[in-house]
Structure formats: C-alpha cells, structure tokens
C-alpha cells in the first residue's frame, strides 16, 4: 500500500484558538457589565450606545457566535484533519472562513450598539450581515465536505457526523429565519408577521441552541474526551444512537418557547412531547461521555482539563434535563418570563460550552506548541473559580425566578393582586442580582487566568504551522456496496449522501412544524378593529426595536388571571397580523406593555408620564432600574424614510390604501403635532419630530384596537354605578391599609408624602382641580382623569380600599412636605 506524505494545517487552528480567547474575554466582560446595569442603572452611562437594551444582544451574540463559534471552528479544524488523515481541503477557504467570521463579529458588535437590529433573539443582525454569514457558512461547509472527500480514512468517525449535521441545519435555520424585506441598508422587516414570525423565530432560536451550542460540541466531546482520557468512547453504538435520535428530535421542540402564548394548541403540545423525548438521547450522550472515564477517575483528580470536561458533560446532562422540565406547561407557567430561563442558558453556556472549551484549550495548547502547560496549578485555580462562578450564578437566579413569579401570581384574601406594583417584585430580587455580579467576577477572573496561562504556554514553545504526517492512501472505494458491508458503513463512505440524509432527518421535523404554520395565515380569525399602525406609530415601533425595549418588556399577556388582573385582556393571535417583526419578548425585567394604550386599563399612563419617565425613570420611581433615554427627546425621526417603510409594509400585505406612502408624512406630522400640543398643556415643550413623540404614539397604540373590540361587548353587562360608601368606619386598620396602598400605587405621580411631581398635583394643600370633598376625591380615584394621566382604580381596589385612600389623602392636608408642588386648581376651604 502506498504511503502518502502530507501536513496538517496547525496555523488555522492556532488563529481560531487565539480568536476564541479574545472573544471569550469580550463576551464575559459585556455580560458582567449588563449584570451590573441591572442593579445600578447609572452604569448605562446615560449614553445611547451603552444601554442594557443594546448591550444584552451584544453579550448573547458575542458569547454564542464569537466565543463558542470560534471554539467550534478551532476544534473542527484540528480534529477533522486528524480523524480524516488529511490537510483541510483548501487553505484559501480556511482563511476566508477565519477572517470572514471575524469581520462578521466586528460588524455585529458595531451595528448592535448603534441600535441596528431586527430584534429577533440570536438573529438580531441586519440583512447585509445575514448575507455575509450565509457566504462564510457556505465557505466553511465547502471546505469541510471537500476535506471529507479528500480523506485517507475509509469511514467517518461520529464526531464528523455531528459537524455535518451542524453545518446543514444551521444553514437551513439561518436562511429561513432571515427572510426579510430590506428597506434601507440598515433596516429590514421580517417577511413573517405575528404568530408566524414568533413560530419561525423560536424554531430558529431553539435550534440555534441545538445545532450551534450542542451538536458541534458533542462532536468535540466525542473526539477530545477520548483523547484527553486516552481511551475510546464507552460505547460507539450508543454514540451512533445519540446522533440520529438527537438530530431527528431536536428540530421539533421549538414551540416550547411559546407555551400559553398566542399559538395553536397542537403546536404547543408537539413542542412539549418532543422536548420530553429529548431527555433520552441527551442523557445517553452524557452517560456515554462520563463512562468513557471508567477506570480513569484517578486521572481526573490530577488533571485540571479532565475536571473541566467532567463538569462540562455534567452541565450538559443538567441542562438537557432542565430544558424538558421547563417545557412542561405547568412548570413553564411559573418559569417563563423570569430569570429561570437566564439561569438555564447559563448552565449551558458557562458549564457545557465554556468548560468543554477550556478543557480543550488546556489540552490543545501544549500539543500545538510542543511544550508543557505553563502552570497546572493556575489551571486548577481557574477550574475552581469557574465552578464557583457557575454555582453563584445559577442558584441566586433560580431563587429570584421563583420569588418573582410567585409574587406576580399572589392574590390577597379579597381576590386582589398582592403586589400590584410591578417594581416591588423587581426590588425584592435585587439582592440576588448582587450575587450574580460576584459570580460574573469569579468566572471572568478564571478566564483571565486561563488566557495568561495559555499565552505563557505558547511563549514557551514553538508552533509547527505545518505538521508533517503520512498515512496510507485510501484505496479506490467502490461506488456500490461492497459485499458484507452494511448500509450505514456504505453511507459513511459517502459523505455527500450522508449530508443529504442528515438534512432530510432535520427537515421532517421542520416541515411538520412549518407547513401548518403557513396554513395558519388563512386561519387566524381577523379582528375587525385591528388596523395597521399609523406612520408615526410605525416609526415609534422602530425606535422601540432600535432601543431594544423588547429585551426587558414583553408584549404578551398570557391567559392567567394573575396576568389579566395586572395587565388587562390576554393577547390573541389576531392582534399581531401587522407586526413585522413580532415583539412578544422573552423576559419581563419590566412590566408587560401589551396593554399600555388601553385608556381604561390598568397599565395606562398619560403622554406626559411617558415623557417624564423616559427622560428620568428614577425621578418617577426612585427604585426603578430602567436606564434614562434623554436622547429620544433630542433626536429626530427620519421622516423622509417613512414612505419607503410604508411601501415595504404594503409589499408584505399590510393593507394601507394604495398610494398611502405619499400621504404618510403629512399624517405623521399631524399626529405628532397633536401629541406635542398635548404635552404642552403639561408644560413639556418638545418638537413634534422627536423620536420620543413617535415612541409615545406607539405605546399609546398597544392594545387599543382590541379594547375597542371588547368595549362593545362589555357595554351590555355594565356594573351598577359606584357611589361613595357611607357605612364604613374610619379606624387605624383602615388607615394602615390605605397608607400601604398609597405607597404602592400613588407615589409615582403624587410623591411619597403627597407633595406632587411634574405629573401629579400636590395633595397636601387646599387647592383642588376637581373638588376637595370626600365624595369628589373618591370618584376621581375610582374613575380617574384619563386625559390628564390619572388612571381609573376601581378595577384594582374595592370600594372600601378607595374609601380608605380618600381618608388617607384628606389626612395629608396641611402637612407641608418638602419639595411641595405649586398649587393647582381652586381653593377649597
């Protein structure tokens, strides 16, 4: 048999390894910063490019695509050459891949902080970058398949199968989820709307986790764990089962991100069933990994890199158990929109991806540079810092998730929300956020120590960029099945066929999910009162997207009493038919906004409240953790771009009248002027063209259409008119409850001591705008004064509570608090 000489390309591996180190530090650093921002809003720096809303996607993208992405390519380029005993197919393609990927990362970082985003989670990048990703991904796949075809080994090891599945699936996911209509170079609208957009996005989002964070890492596990332990994988059969079952099942589970949301029943059930089934292959893989170390556990005690790998595989097992549990509807009802999801993904990324990467790096650097690790002791320090970091991250967040969820859902004996003020539930969990910062510091410190250790290692050795190797040439392989060869063995000789079959396996799940989804379009009951956004509201929606409001605010009221009591009517699929893209959100760091525009609703706030709150949230609620957005009152909406946006919407099927793009600017200005004039009556002077005006218009639209739809129905069953109760005694108990209610609900506009603020009048002087008699005060509390921003409270409070509040407010008369607002209204003696 002929022996062929060739060389392994170590230089590309080295470059991907350095990129991994660099982006790891960046991703962890940004993560630490946003963790600090959630406790101390001052660290948003009052600067538009550094708000939480823009930095959080930067953090997730850096962690997933920059850190984990480069680590995947490092591992694939290193292990594939050796498993196939050949050099990569083309050096040129390798370097185009490397530099292309780094350019994409830098472009992503630059656009995300600039507020250029599609707002879809883990797919935030705008269309020019989407195209770049597609091209670089094709280069990667071409290089990989080419290498496989050039191989000197007959059969493909299971790690390679995982790499192939990663390539094909990510390609399909990325392309389908990026269907969008470009409006300008930096702006596009998703082709899908509302429910469809949500379903496609989470089909993508879930499988981005599956096929970017899981399958390539399983490939790496199946190569590097045997290497590090110097023994073959426990059961190769089990690894084959793991592969096929996993890629077949994973693709189905996406809808579990949308449980109890406006999604068809059968899709939700499908997501739950397949998620639970996923436990089996995932745990098979975990057991396979851990048992590979059978008889080698003594090595684990001495080797930091094996410790990293053991914790990584354990974290994989924990995540893949927790994931299906979170997909159960009754668990999801509690966990969704809370920090539980955040804790869950961090077990995955910090534990599974992070620790496996660290283990591989500690193994690879000495090999690559023909030397010994600079310090085993420092690697052990890193291991313990990292492990403590994960624990201090996850445990407090589980605690905060359960605490907050139970507070959201708690009712008093009288049937009212126990914590009607959302902010209270945030303040309660802030101590946990302090601990999370500490956890981030630990994990970060470990990573910095690793970088130091590895760079020292590299400096002490020399990397052979082209490592000489030789192997017997592969005999001419028969095209047909050789006698005695099984089907799968034949398949493993046919990489292209294998790729196609892997594609078929993942497409079955995708098609079953997506075909009915397309049918949904004709089956969503249209709600007559739901109309397209006005041009100003559309511009406001784009401001909302650019500022990343969706990072903290959901727009999805689930059909639970605790949510309809707090926010208003639950969300219906028909409401979202013009939402390109959907903005349901996934975490409620702030309250849901789906019903902010319902004038008679509980979430309603006046234009002036929104204005003041956006400029200085802490001025309205001292404990708020929302960053201020002063630039919204200084920057203008680009009105000249509005007609193009209207045309893009029309091409997506939003029924604006023909030629409306010509009318759009005039309509926009008229509506903006109306809002600006309204703000003037509250002594706020703002140009109508400012972004804040558009944003207010959008917020005041949310839920408005559906409320008009139901108002007619409710008219029929109106409650008897409310009157001032005369049979309630004023005692200490009543006043204590009243004071508590006041502090929880009224201080945002009237101040802690009733002194008033830019929105609400002073309650302690003798001047009253709407009369100062007990009856008049009672009726104002009950019915509100919508046009001035005072909401109606009769839905939240019993008549007794409102009677108590009236007495409490009267008791504030003449207390002369500090910072009292000047008198408004008429003198009442």
């Amino acid at each position, binding site marked *: 048999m002929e022996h062929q000489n060739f060389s392994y390309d170590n230089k590309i591996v080295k470059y991907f390894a350095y990129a991994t180190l660099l982006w790891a530090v960046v991703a962890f650093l940004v993560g630490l910063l946003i963790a600090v921002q959630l406790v101390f809003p001052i660290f948003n720096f009052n600067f538009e490019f550094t708000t939480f809303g823009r930095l959080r996607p930067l953090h997730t993208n850096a962690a997933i695509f920059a850190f984990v992405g480069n680590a995947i390519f490092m591992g694939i380029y290193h292990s594939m050459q050796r498993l196939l005993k050949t050099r990569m197919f083309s050096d040129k393609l390798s370097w185009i891949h490397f530099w292309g990927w780094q350019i994409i990362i830098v472009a992503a970082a630059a656009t995300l902080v600039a507020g250029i985003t599609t707002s879809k989670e883990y797919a935030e990048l705008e269309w020019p970058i989407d195209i770049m990703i597609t091209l670089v991904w094709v280069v990667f796949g071409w290089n990989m398949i080419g290498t496989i075809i050039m191989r000197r*080994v007959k059969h493909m*090891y299971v790690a390679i199968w995982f790499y192939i599945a990663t390539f094909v699936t990510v390609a399909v996911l990325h392309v389908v989820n990026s269907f969008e209509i470009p409006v300008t170079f930096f702006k596009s609208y998703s082709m899908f709307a509302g429910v469809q957009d949500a379903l496609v996005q989470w089909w993508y989002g879930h499988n981005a986790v599956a096929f970017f964070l899981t399958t390539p890492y399983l490939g790496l596990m199946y190569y590097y764990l045997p290497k590090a332990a110097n*023994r073959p994988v426990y059961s*190769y059969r089990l690894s084959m089962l793991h592969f*096929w079952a996993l890629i*077949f099942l994973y693709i189905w589970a996406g809808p579990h991100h949308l449980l109890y949301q406006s999604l068809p029943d059968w899709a939700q059930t499908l997501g739950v069933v397949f998620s639970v089934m996923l436990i089996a292959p995932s745990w098979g893989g975990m057991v396979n990994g851990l048992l590979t170390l059978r008889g080698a556990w003594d090595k684990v005690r001495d080797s930091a890199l094996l410790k990293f790998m053991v914790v990584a595989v354990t974290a994989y097992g924990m995540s893949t158990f927790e994931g299906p549990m979170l997909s159960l*509807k009754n668990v999801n009802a509690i966990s969704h929109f809370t920090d539980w999801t955040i804790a869950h993904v961090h077990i995955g990324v910090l534990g599974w991806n992070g620790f496996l990467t660290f283990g591989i790096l500690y193994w690879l650097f000495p090999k690559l540079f023909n030397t010994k690790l600079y310090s085993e002791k420092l690697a052990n320090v890193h291991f313990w810092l990292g492990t403590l970091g994960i624990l201090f991250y996850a445990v407090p967040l589980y605690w905060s998730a359960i605490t907050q969820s139970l507070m959201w859902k708690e009712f008093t004996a009288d049937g009212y929300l126990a914590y009607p003020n959302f902010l209270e539930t945030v303040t309660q969990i802030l101590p946990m956020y302090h601990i999370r910062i500490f956890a981030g510091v630990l994990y970060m410190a470990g990573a910095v120590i690793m970088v130091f250790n590895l760079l020292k290692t590299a400096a002490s050795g020399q990397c052979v960029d082209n490592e000489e190797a030789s192997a017997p040439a592969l005999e001419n392989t028969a095209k047909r099945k050789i006698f005695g060869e099984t089907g799968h*063995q034949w398949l493993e000789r046919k990489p292209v066929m294998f790729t196609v079959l892997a594609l078929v396996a993942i497409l079955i799940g995708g098609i*079953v999910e997506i075909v009915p989804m397309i049918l*949904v379009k004709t089956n969503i009951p249209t709600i007559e009162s739901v109309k397209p956004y006005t041009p100003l509201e559309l511009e406001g929606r784009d401001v909302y997207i650019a500022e990343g409001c969706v990072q903290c605010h959901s727009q999805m009221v689930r059909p639970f009493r605790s949510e309809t009591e707090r926010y208003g009517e639950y969300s219906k699929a028909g409401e979202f038919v013009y939402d390109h893209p959907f903005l349901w959100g996934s975490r409620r760091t702030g309250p849901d906004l789906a019903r902010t525009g319902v004038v008679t609703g509980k979430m309603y706030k006046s234009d002036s409240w929104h204005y003041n709150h956006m400029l200085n949230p802490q001025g309205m609620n001292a404990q708020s953790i929302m960053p201020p957005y002063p630039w919204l009152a200084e920057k203008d909406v680009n009105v000249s771009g509005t007609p193009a946006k209207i045309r893009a919407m029309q091409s997506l099927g939003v029924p604006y009248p023909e030629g409306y793009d010509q009318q759009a600017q005039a309509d926009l200005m008229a509506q903006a002027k109306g809002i600006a004039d309204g703000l003037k009556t509250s002594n706020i002077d703002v140009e109508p063209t400012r972004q804040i005006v558009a944003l207010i218009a959008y917020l005041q639209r949310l839920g408005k259409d559906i409320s008009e739809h139901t108002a007619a129905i409710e008219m029929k069953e109106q409650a008897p008119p409310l009157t001032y109760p005369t049979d309630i005694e004023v005692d200490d108990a009543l006043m204590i409850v009243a004071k508590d209610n006041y502090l929880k609900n009224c201080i945002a506009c009237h101040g802690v001591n009733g002194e008033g603020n830019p929105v609400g009048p002073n309650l302690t002087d003798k001047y009253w705008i709407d009369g100062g008699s007990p009856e008049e005060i009672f009726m104002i509390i009950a019915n509100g004064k919508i046009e001035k921003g005072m909401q109606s409270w009769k839905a939240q409070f019993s008549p007794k509570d409102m009677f108590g509040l009236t007495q409490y407010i009267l008791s504030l008369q003449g207390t002369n608090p500090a910072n009292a607002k000047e008198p408004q209204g008429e003198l009442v003696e």
Partner: protein
Amino acid sequence: MKIVSHYLESIEGVAIYPIIGILIFVLFFIVLLFYLFYLDKGYVKDMGNLPLDDDLEVNENQTKKL
C-alpha cells in the same frame, strides 16, 4: 387551554401532521436499534479507536517525535 386558540380546527385533519411525524420517528428509531444491535463488533471497536489512532499512525513515520 381551550381559550387560547381554535384556529387550526378549521383545517381538515390537521392532527395528521404530528401523528405522521411521531410515526416516522418511532419507525426510524426501531430500525436504528435493530441495525445497531446487529452491527459488526470488530467494526464498532475500530471506529471507537479512530481518535486514538491518529497520533500513532503519524508518529510511526515521524522520527523527530517520540
């Protein structure tokens, strides 16, 4: 969650999609189990050793490395 949605009830026989899906998976899974069960032992052992081979092969022909 009956109040959430009934949209797809109007599509005739929509339940067939998930049923077909699960059936395909179960069949596939059973075939896979049989296949793995009857897989040649020597082959499986060779495949499992693939990651460990590579250095040996290279080192045999490389004088500068041990």
